[in-house]
């Protein structure tokens, strides 16, 4: 149970004869939404290749953040990742795609082009100056193109927003859109180090720690310590 409460929003309450997990539906639902984002990839130019396809591949691996099931159909997606220049001819199609997605839907705009028109803002007869002229955007990820790590940073930001945001009592009430820029002076090695740390922390299930953290009723405590001895000796034998 300790493993569960570390990750799920909620608290363990002791009642006679056992423990009960207490949480709120809002939090459970937001937790589930944040960790199972299915992106619809809207890649129209260089950003899509340099960043979006790179994050889907095995080197950067979007799957670690629960967002790897890239959908070709808006009906099955709840996150729209915009990557690339949007032109006037494309704008109505983008609007249609967005409206076909089921609520709740989230939008990440990556790259200078989708944020503002980017390099094509002047002297262009057709580049739309920012995706937010067409659809609402939740997270902006700047760069030309952004590093794959920056998309992860944006994705983690969105997950945080979802966990703190919208409740089922007040649907549609969101936090303001955010710019998920990497802080200045941060190097690629720093980000990779932090990501590694985070992943190790999130993905290693420390059973012994969980057992120790729980205060078992007196009879169970003996059993658990006996079990942990067995575990340790088992591990010792194995190595």
């Amino acid at each position, binding site marked *: 149970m300790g493993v569960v409460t570390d990750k799920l929003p909620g608290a363990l309450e002791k009642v006679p004869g056992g423990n009960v997990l207490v949480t709120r539906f809002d939090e459970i639902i937001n937790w589930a939404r944040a960790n199972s984002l299915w992106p619809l990839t809207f890649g129209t130019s260089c950003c899509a290749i340099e960043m979006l396809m790179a994050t889907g591949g095995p080197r950067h691996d979007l799957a670690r953040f629960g967002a790897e099931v890239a959908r070709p159909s808006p009906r099955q997606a709840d996150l729209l990742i915009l990557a690339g220049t949007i032109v*006037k*001819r494309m704008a109505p199609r983008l609007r249609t795609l967005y409206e076909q997605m089921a609520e709740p839907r989230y939008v990440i705009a990556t790259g200078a082009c989708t944020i503002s028109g980017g390099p094509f*803002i*002047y*002297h*262009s*007869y*057709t580049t739309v100056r920012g995706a937010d002229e067409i659809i609402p955007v939740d997270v902006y990820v700047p760069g030309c193109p952004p590093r794959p790590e920056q998309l992860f940073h944006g994705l983690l930001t969105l997950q945080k927003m979802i966990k703190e945001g919208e409740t089922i009592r007040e649907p549609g009430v969101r936090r303001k859109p955010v710019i998920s820029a990497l802080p200045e002076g941060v190097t690629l090695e720093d980000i990779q180090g932090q990501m590694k740390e985070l992943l190790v922390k999130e993905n290693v299930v420390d059973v012994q720690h969980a057992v120790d953290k729980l205060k078992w009723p007196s009879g169970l405590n003996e059993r658990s310590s006996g079990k942990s001895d067995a575990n340790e000796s088992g591990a010792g034998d194995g190595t």
Partner: protein
Amino acid sequence: MEREALQAAVCELDSAVRPLDENADRAAVIVEASALPAIIRRLRDEPEFAFAQLLDHVAVDWIDRGQFELIYQLYSFKHKHFLSVSVLVPREDPRVPTLCRVHPVAEWQEREVYDLFGVLYEDHPDLRRLFLEDDWIGFPLRKDYQDDFMLDRPR
């Protein structure tokens, strides 16, 4: 064939063909607009040249000279050589015969150039816009194109 030899051999074909020497990396010639389809057809059919593919068709807006330069890039699978054929047309009345009957692929390439430069291809079966909306006004890749949407860089 080598670049110079090919260029000279193509210029032998007809008096409407002149060499174009600014272009140093592949054989290039200038052709009179009226003679264009006949010459492209001969370049395709004569085994010595065998230019079976029209790779690309683009236009350049030489606004100072008041001309559009229409460039046809040809390639031969047989001899593996390239040729660039240019046609100069006046900006005020840009008309040129279509190449659809010689290379069917020219139909869409010419529609693209019509869409962005407004060059009129005589005898083209379906000269409509390709990339822009059908009700678009003007031809945006002309150097003097202006509309209300465009922003100028602040100085």
